């Protein structure tokens, strides 16, 4: 009798795990291992499935290089105008379908004109400006783009740029600012972990999600760990203006006239009958510093502010947030990506005389 009961519980346990594995892998979360790349930074495994159901819902297959595109090829065809998109999770856009993200929509809009375009989305979650500076030679050599669209937030030049947890981060020394490349953080034991994950085979989604969920729970319950994650590099620069100026100068040196910076605005909200952008004073201040620096170094700057306001006024749709997260907060939704694509297309129409 006891053995029968053990058998029942074992079978029930295995079936429950399998059921949860299917649910998680198809509806909640499925991540794919990174491929080590010192030239343009770590990226995901080619042709692997990524599922995001925690904010919006999308299930995508990475392209031949592991980015969030339908198609990618470093080999360039004659007469094709190539644009690469750099950015963090906002531009990577795992929350919407591939054809709905702004890279995909911009590609579609541009190819409605007489010229042939290729817009490649090379955004990777967690990237910040020091990464774009460090990997610039790699991007330019591999993809040979005509234009580089760089999605930025205020934090990309400030807090994120100084995060010592990143592979590339801004370092303040007696000699001034520099970029520190810390490969230890991303390589130690990484191959073995990936090997182990691959061996887990069918149970990969549930194990990876359990690990992620457990870490999230632990982080939320222990503020000291959260602090550790956000620990800035030793001697981190405290002068935002100097840091932004230095990074902007480096970006200009690296990408020259190919660079277009697009600012990912927060969402507008209706309060007391008026429409506001949900941006605090610090963000507003940093945005002004970024705009001043782009003007100083003659870098093109695209701000989809008007598109966001117009879209909200006419359709009531916010550019950020989803029904399963908070409207107005978090990543861009399909409406937000449309507004961004429209702003960029309008800008490129003038710049490229389309």
């Amino acid at each position, binding site marked *: 009798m006891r053995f029968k009961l053990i058998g029942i519980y074992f079978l029930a346990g295995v079936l429950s795990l399998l059921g949860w594995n299917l649910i998680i892998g198809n509806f909640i979360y499925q991540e794919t291992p990174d491929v080590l790349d010192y030239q343009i930074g770590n990226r995901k495994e080619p042709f692997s499935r990524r599922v995001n159901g925690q904010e919006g819902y999308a299930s995508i297959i990475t392209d031949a290089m592991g980015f969030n595109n339908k198609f990618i090829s470093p080999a360039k065809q004659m007469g094709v105008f190539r644009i690469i998109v750099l950015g963090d999770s906002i531009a990577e856009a795992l929350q919407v379908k591939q054809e709905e993200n702004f890279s995909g929509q911009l590609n579609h809009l541009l190819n409605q004109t007489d010229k042939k375009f290729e817009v490649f989305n090379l955004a990777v979650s967690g990237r910040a400006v020091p990464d774009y500076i460090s990997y610039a030679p790699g991007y330019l050599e591999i993809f040979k783009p005509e234009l580089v669209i760089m999605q930025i937030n205020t934090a990309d030049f400030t807090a994120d740029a100084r995060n010592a947890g990143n592979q590339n981060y801004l370092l303040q020394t007696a000699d001034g600012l520099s970029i520190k490349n810390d490969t230890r953080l991303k390589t130690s034991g990484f191959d073995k972990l990936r090997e182990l994950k691959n061996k887990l085979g069918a149970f990969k989604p549930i194990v990876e999600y359990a690990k992620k*969920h457990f870490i999230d729970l632990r982080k939320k319950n222990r503020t000291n760990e959260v602090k550790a994650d956000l620990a800035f590099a030793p001697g981190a620069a405290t002068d935002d203006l100097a840091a932004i100026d230095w990074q902007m100068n480096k970006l200009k040196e690296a990408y020259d006239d190919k660079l277009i910076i697009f600012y990912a605005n927060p969402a507008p909200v209706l309060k007391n009958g008026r429409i506001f952008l949900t941006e605090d004073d610090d963000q507003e201040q940093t945005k002004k510093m970024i705009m001043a620096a782009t003007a100083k170094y003659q870098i093109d700057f695209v701000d989809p502010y008007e598109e966001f306001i117009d879209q909200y006024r006419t359709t009531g749709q916010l550019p950020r947030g989803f029904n399963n997260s908070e409207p107005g907060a978090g990543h861009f939704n399909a409406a937000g990506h449309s507004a961004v694509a429209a702003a960029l297309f309008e800008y490129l129409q003038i710049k490229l005389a389309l």
Partner: protein
Amino acid sequence: MIFSTLTFFIFFAGVLILLALFKNQNWRKCVLLGSSLIFYGWWDWRFLSLIAFSTLLDYFAGLGIDRHNNPKTKKLILILSLCANLGLLGFFKYFNFFIDSANVAFGFMGFNLSTLNIILPVGISFYTFQTMSYTIDIYRDKIPAHKNFLEFAIFVTFFPQLVAGPIVRASEFLYQFKNQILLRWINFKEGGQIFLFGLVKKILIADRLAFFVDRTFASPDVYNSLTLWLAVITYAIQIYCDFSGYSDMAIGLGKILGFKFPTNFKMPYLSLSVKEFWTRWHISLSTWLKDYLYIPLGGNRKGKSRTVINMFITMLLGGLWHGASWNFVAWGFLHGLGISVNKLFGNFIKLPKNKLTAFLSWLVTFVFILITWVFFRSRDFGVSLAYLKKMFAFSADGVTWLYTPLLLILPIIIIAHLAGKLKNIDVREYLYLNLRTFSGAFVLILVILSLFFLSVTHPNSFIYFQF
């Protein structure tokens, strides 16, 4: 220490291990008392002195009332005990509220008293009502004074229901010490399932819905009317699952330890009138208010107008019991109004009893309850009014938020309630699992996995802890 955290599970495992180690009944009682004090002291050890004071006060007050034959002496002891209990409650819970209100009311006369930095001790409203009912019941000769101090102290401090009820009366609890404190598999199995059911309500429903409710109630002007209606429905579900989830967990824990607690909820949103709602919602509070406030005020024995006044007083004070805020007063007032209208309307107009009138009665009652929840949840009176104004403007201005978890949970709640109504039993009873079968084992493991995978990453405190 919140029931839905790992800390509590470790704590409870420790309690069970200690109970298993000590076979002597007195030692087991010491374990229960000690663990209850640790549980309470976990929040703030300084308040242990407060609960110790309450325990000693009412223990000796009970003995005093029981021992003396002179009615005047009995009454004097009771009054002293009630004054001390209500004094503590009044000071910790209502002092700043009354000072603030007085400053507002008499501000034009230059009245400006300063408030004190007072921390509200967790569960003070619950254990104060418990101890008060004990001395009143002795005074009324309903129960004798309990001589065993250890058992009485467990009654006041018992950790499963200490901080958020059910409000257990001495007559319901102390007699249970006649039985031995035994750890039995059957109790563990049944109590564990009741606890798990409460945990599902709390973690999978209430905590997940809190995300939507917190944001919409924080800035109602941002959202359109549809979203605000959905948000208040969501809050109705959240507070039910949060509070009844806590009650289930308390009942389950009590059962595991060999104690029985009264039922606190009976599917309240199936009510066809506000009066019926109060026979299904927070039953231990509503019966307490009825027995120790409404009936002593005269109940329905002194004419119609006096009945209505008594009802209003009871509901206003019931509202104020929840917290020191005009929002709770308004909430209590509305419930008093609802019950009075119910009573007067019911006496004058006799509706035919059919499915249509039943449905309409349910609908009116449910919408009324939703309106009262707006006052209960909003951070202040102004927000409540702004929320209601936008709700009833039926305006499309603002953000539409069809919160996905609500759309998944709502049908489950409706089906569970309808099934419960059809079978005339509580949902919990027909979900009871036979753990020796494959289906029972499968559901149990699936639920435990769900609790892990679907838990939100910020365990919320129980709503009723603040009361």
